[in-house]
Protein backbone atom coordinates (compact mmCIF):
# COMPACT_ATOMS: atom_id res chain seq x y z
CA UNK A 1 0.00 0.00 0.00
CA UNK A 2 1.27 3.44 -0.84
CA UNK A 3 1.74 5.55 2.23
CA UNK A 4 1.40 8.95 0.63
CA UNK A 5 -2.08 8.34 -0.77
CA UNK A 6 -3.89 8.36 2.57
CA UNK A 7 -5.46 11.80 2.36
CA UNK A 8 -6.34 11.27 -1.30
CA UNK A 9 -8.15 8.05 -0.40
CA UNK A 10 -9.91 9.79 2.47
CA UNK A 11 -11.10 12.55 0.12
CA UNK A 12 -12.31 9.95 -2.39
CA UNK A 13 -14.23 8.10 0.34
CA UNK A 14 -15.86 11.36 1.43
CA UNK A 15 -16.78 12.10 -2.20
CA UNK A 16 -18.44 8.70 -2.52
CA UNK A 17 -20.37 9.38 0.69
CA UNK A 18 -21.65 12.68 -0.75
CA UNK A 19 -22.66 10.84 -3.93
CA UNK A 20 -24.56 8.26 -1.87
CA UNK A 21 -26.39 11.06 -0.08
CA UNK A 22 -27.40 12.57 -3.42
CA UNK A 23 -28.69 9.19 -4.55
CA UNK A 24 -30.97 9.10 -1.49
CA UNK A 25 -32.89 11.98 -3.09
CA UNK A 26 -34.03 9.79 -5.98
CA UNK A 27 -34.68 6.94 -3.55
CA UNK A 28 -37.04 9.02 -1.42
CA UNK A 29 -38.67 11.06 -4.16
CA UNK A 30 -38.82 8.69 -7.10
CA UNK A 31 -42.20 8.76 -8.80
CA UNK A 32 -42.38 5.03 -9.56
CA UNK A 33 -41.27 1.86 -7.82
CA UNK A 34 -38.64 1.17 -10.47
CA UNK A 35 -36.94 4.53 -9.88
CA UNK A 36 -36.55 3.58 -6.25
CA UNK A 37 -35.18 0.16 -7.14
CA UNK A 38 -32.66 1.71 -9.51
CA UNK A 39 -31.56 4.10 -6.79
CA UNK A 40 -31.19 1.24 -4.28
CA UNK A 41 -29.10 -0.76 -6.74
CA UNK A 42 -26.82 2.17 -7.48
CA UNK A 43 -26.57 2.94 -3.75
CA UNK A 44 -25.38 -0.63 -3.15
CA UNK A 45 -22.69 -0.34 -5.81
CA UNK A 46 -21.47 2.88 -4.21
CA UNK A 47 -21.45 1.14 -0.81
CA UNK A 48 -19.13 -1.54 -2.22
CA UNK A 49 -16.76 1.11 -3.56
CA UNK A 50 -16.85 3.02 -0.27
CA UNK A 51 -15.97 -0.14 1.67
CA UNK A 52 -13.02 -0.86 -0.65
CA UNK A 53 -11.61 2.66 -0.34
CA UNK A 54 -12.22 2.86 3.40
CA UNK A 55 -10.18 -0.33 3.91
CA UNK A 56 -7.24 1.46 2.32
CA UNK A 57 -7.79 4.50 4.53
CA UNK A 58 -7.76 2.61 7.82
CA UNK A 59 -5.07 0.20 6.63
CA UNK A 60 -6.92 -3.05 7.32
CA UNK A 61 -7.56 -5.30 4.32
CA UNK A 62 -10.40 -7.25 5.95
CA UNK A 63 -13.25 -5.13 4.70
CA UNK A 64 -12.78 -6.10 1.07
CA UNK A 65 -14.29 -9.48 1.97
CA UNK A 66 -17.37 -7.66 3.22
CA UNK A 67 -17.38 -5.71 -0.06
CA UNK A 68 -17.43 -8.97 -2.06
CA UNK A 69 -20.31 -10.24 0.07
CA UNK A 70 -22.20 -6.97 -0.32
CA UNK A 71 -21.77 -6.96 -4.11
CA UNK A 72 -23.33 -10.42 -4.39
CA UNK A 73 -26.09 -9.70 -1.87
CA UNK A 74 -27.04 -6.44 -3.60
CA UNK A 75 -27.62 -8.22 -6.91
CA UNK A 76 -29.66 -11.04 -5.34
CA UNK A 77 -31.77 -8.57 -3.34
CA UNK A 78 -32.56 -6.51 -6.46
CA UNK A 79 -33.66 -9.60 -8.41
CA UNK A 80 -35.72 -10.88 -5.47
CA UNK A 81 -37.56 -7.59 -4.98
CA UNK A 82 -38.26 -7.33 -8.72
CA UNK A 83 -39.65 -10.87 -8.81
CA UNK A 84 -41.78 -10.23 -5.75
CA UNK A 85 -43.31 -7.09 -7.20
CA UNK A 86 -43.95 -8.78 -10.55
CA UNK A 87 -45.66 -11.91 -9.19
CA UNK A 88 -46.57 -10.93 -5.60
CA UNK A 89 -44.96 -14.23 -4.53
CA UNK A 90 -41.46 -15.64 -4.45
CA UNK A 91 -42.17 -19.33 -5.11
CA UNK A 92 -42.94 -18.89 -8.81
CA UNK A 93 -40.94 -21.00 -11.21
CA UNK A 94 -39.54 -18.88 -14.02
CA UNK A 95 -38.57 -21.92 -16.10
CA UNK A 96 -41.91 -23.44 -17.09
CA UNK A 97 -44.77 -21.47 -18.54
CA UNK A 98 -43.54 -18.20 -20.13
CA UNK A 99 -46.80 -16.36 -19.57
CA UNK A 100 -46.38 -12.62 -19.09
CA UNK A 101 -46.57 -11.15 -15.66
CA UNK A 102 -49.86 -9.60 -14.62
CA UNK A 103 -49.67 -5.98 -15.56
CA UNK A 104 -49.86 -3.41 -12.79
CA UNK A 105 -52.14 -0.40 -13.03
CA UNK A 106 -50.70 2.69 -14.62
CA UNK A 107 -50.46 4.81 -11.48
CA UNK A 108 -48.57 2.20 -9.48
CA UNK A 109 -46.09 3.95 -7.25
Amino acid at each position, binding site marked *: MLEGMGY*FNLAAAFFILV*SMGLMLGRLLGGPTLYDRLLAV*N*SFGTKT*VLFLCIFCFVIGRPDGVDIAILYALMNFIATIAVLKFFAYRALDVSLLGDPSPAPSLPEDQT
Partner: protein
Amino acid sequence: MIIATIMMAGAEATSHAPAGITLNFTQILYGLRVLIAGAAILVGLFFLLAGTLGVLRLPDFYTRIHAAGMTDTLGAELILLGLMVQSGFSQMTLKLLFVAFFLLLTGPTATHAVANAAYRAGLKPQLGPYRAPDVDTIRKAGRPGL
Protein backbone atom coordinates in the same frame (compact mmCIF):
# COMPACT_ATOMS: atom_id res chain seq x y z
CA MET B 1 10.16 -12.36 -15.38
CA ILE B 2 10.15 -8.79 -16.64
CA ILE B 3 8.71 -7.67 -13.30
CA ALA B 4 11.38 -9.60 -11.40
CA THR B 5 14.09 -7.97 -13.55
CA ILE B 6 12.62 -4.54 -12.88
CA MET B 7 12.49 -5.23 -9.14
CA MET B 8 16.10 -6.47 -9.08
CA ALA B 9 17.20 -3.42 -11.02
CA GLY B 10 15.29 -1.25 -8.60
CA ALA B 11 16.94 -2.88 -5.59
CA GLU B 12 20.36 -2.43 -7.16
CA ALA B 13 19.61 1.20 -7.91
CA THR B 14 18.62 1.76 -4.29
CA SER B 15 21.77 0.18 -2.94
CA HIS B 16 24.05 2.23 -5.16
CA ALA B 17 22.07 5.46 -5.15
CA PRO B 18 23.96 8.51 -3.93
CA ALA B 19 22.19 10.68 -1.40
CA GLY B 20 21.21 13.59 -3.59
CA ILE B 21 18.44 15.25 -5.48
CA THR B 22 18.47 12.81 -8.42
CA LEU B 23 15.63 10.31 -8.51
CA ASN B 24 16.57 6.67 -8.54
CA PHE B 25 14.63 3.91 -10.23
CA THR B 26 12.36 2.87 -7.37
CA GLN B 27 11.32 6.45 -6.75
CA ILE B 28 10.35 6.81 -10.40
CA LEU B 29 8.29 3.60 -10.18
CA TYR B 30 6.64 4.88 -6.98
CA GLY B 31 5.75 8.15 -8.67
CA LEU B 32 4.31 6.33 -11.67
CA ARG B 33 2.14 4.19 -9.42
CA VAL B 34 0.85 7.24 -7.52
CA LEU B 35 0.14 9.02 -10.80
CA ILE B 36 -1.71 6.11 -12.43
CA ALA B 37 -3.73 5.30 -9.29
CA GLY B 38 -4.67 8.94 -8.70
CA ALA B 39 -5.70 9.49 -12.31
CA ALA B 40 -7.83 6.33 -12.42
CA ILE B 41 -9.59 7.16 -9.14
CA LEU B 42 -10.21 10.76 -10.21
CA VAL B 43 -11.76 9.72 -13.55
CA GLY B 44 -13.82 7.08 -11.74
CA LEU B 45 -15.12 9.68 -9.28
CA PHE B 46 -16.07 11.93 -12.20
CA PHE B 47 -18.14 9.15 -13.74
CA LEU B 48 -19.68 8.40 -10.33
CA LEU B 49 -20.79 12.02 -9.90
CA ALA B 50 -22.04 12.22 -13.49
CA GLY B 51 -24.15 9.09 -13.02
CA THR B 52 -25.58 10.33 -9.73
CA LEU B 53 -26.53 13.70 -11.17
CA GLY B 54 -28.06 11.92 -14.17
CA VAL B 55 -30.22 9.74 -11.95
CA LEU B 56 -31.30 12.84 -10.05
CA ARG B 57 -31.98 15.16 -12.95
CA LEU B 58 -33.04 13.21 -16.05
CA PRO B 59 -36.75 13.43 -16.84
CA ASP B 60 -37.77 9.79 -17.40
CA PHE B 61 -37.18 6.36 -15.89
CA TYR B 62 -35.73 4.91 -19.09
CA THR B 63 -33.26 7.77 -19.36
CA ARG B 64 -32.26 7.48 -15.71
CA ILE B 65 -31.31 3.84 -16.30
CA HIS B 66 -28.64 5.03 -18.74
CA ALA B 67 -26.96 7.16 -16.08
CA ALA B 68 -27.15 4.42 -13.44
CA GLY B 69 -25.61 1.86 -15.79
CA MET B 70 -22.70 4.19 -16.50
CA THR B 71 -22.04 4.52 -12.76
CA ASP B 72 -22.18 0.78 -12.21
CA THR B 73 -19.70 -0.15 -14.91
CA LEU B 74 -17.15 2.51 -15.82
CA GLY B 75 -16.97 4.45 -12.55
CA ALA B 76 -16.73 1.38 -10.33
CA GLU B 77 -14.19 -0.39 -12.55
CA LEU B 78 -11.93 2.67 -12.76
CA ILE B 79 -11.96 3.21 -8.98
CA LEU B 80 -11.18 -0.47 -8.36
CA LEU B 81 -8.38 -0.31 -10.96
CA GLY B 82 -6.84 2.61 -9.11
CA LEU B 83 -7.03 0.72 -5.82
CA MET B 84 -5.41 -2.32 -7.45
CA VAL B 85 -2.51 -0.19 -8.68
CA GLN B 86 -2.12 1.21 -5.16
CA SER B 87 -2.07 -2.15 -3.42
CA GLY B 88 0.67 -3.67 -5.59
CA PHE B 89 1.09 -7.44 -5.77
CA SER B 90 -0.62 -8.75 -2.66
CA GLN B 91 -3.61 -10.76 -1.54
CA MET B 92 -5.73 -7.61 -1.59
CA THR B 93 -5.28 -7.25 -5.35
CA LEU B 94 -6.93 -10.62 -5.89
CA LYS B 95 -9.87 -9.66 -3.68
CA LEU B 96 -10.27 -6.34 -5.50
CA LEU B 97 -10.18 -8.26 -8.78
CA PHE B 98 -13.02 -10.44 -7.47
CA VAL B 99 -15.04 -7.35 -6.53
CA ALA B 100 -14.45 -5.83 -9.98
CA PHE B 101 -15.44 -9.08 -11.68
CA PHE B 102 -18.66 -9.41 -9.68
CA LEU B 103 -19.59 -5.78 -10.24
CA LEU B 104 -18.95 -6.10 -13.97
CA LEU B 105 -21.10 -9.22 -14.06
CA THR B 106 -24.01 -8.13 -11.88
CA GLY B 107 -24.34 -4.40 -12.59
CA PRO B 108 -25.58 -4.52 -16.19
CA THR B 109 -27.65 -7.62 -15.40
CA ALA B 110 -29.47 -5.87 -12.56
CA THR B 111 -30.01 -2.76 -14.70
CA HIS B 112 -31.44 -4.89 -17.49
CA ALA B 113 -33.69 -6.72 -15.03
CA VAL B 114 -35.08 -3.43 -13.68
CA ALA B 115 -35.70 -2.13 -17.21
CA ASN B 116 -37.34 -5.38 -18.29
CA ALA B 117 -39.59 -5.47 -15.21
CA ALA B 118 -40.66 -1.86 -15.76
CA TYR B 119 -41.42 -2.54 -19.43
CA ARG B 120 -43.43 -5.67 -18.68
CA ALA B 121 -45.38 -3.88 -15.97
CA GLY B 122 -46.50 -1.33 -18.53
CA LEU B 123 -44.45 1.74 -17.66
CA LYS B 124 -44.55 4.00 -20.70
CA PRO B 125 -41.49 5.98 -21.79
CA GLN B 126 -41.86 9.68 -22.53
CA LEU B 127 -41.80 10.05 -26.31
CA GLY B 128 -41.58 13.13 -28.47
CA PRO B 129 -39.53 16.28 -28.01
CA TYR B 130 -38.53 17.19 -24.50
CA ARG B 131 -40.36 20.05 -22.88
CA ALA B 132 -38.91 21.62 -19.78
CA PRO B 133 -41.35 21.91 -16.87
CA ASP B 134 -42.99 25.28 -16.59
CA VAL B 135 -41.62 27.37 -13.76
CA ASP B 136 -44.97 28.90 -12.82
CA THR B 137 -46.63 25.48 -12.63
CA ILE B 138 -43.91 24.20 -10.32
CA ARG B 139 -44.15 27.28 -8.14
CA LYS B 140 -47.93 26.94 -7.85
CA ALA B 141 -47.65 23.24 -7.01
CA GLY B 142 -45.18 24.10 -4.27
CA ARG B 143 -42.62 21.49 -5.31
CA PRO B 144 -38.96 22.14 -6.01
CA GLY B 145 -38.05 21.29 -9.55
CA LEU B 146 -36.27 18.04 -8.79
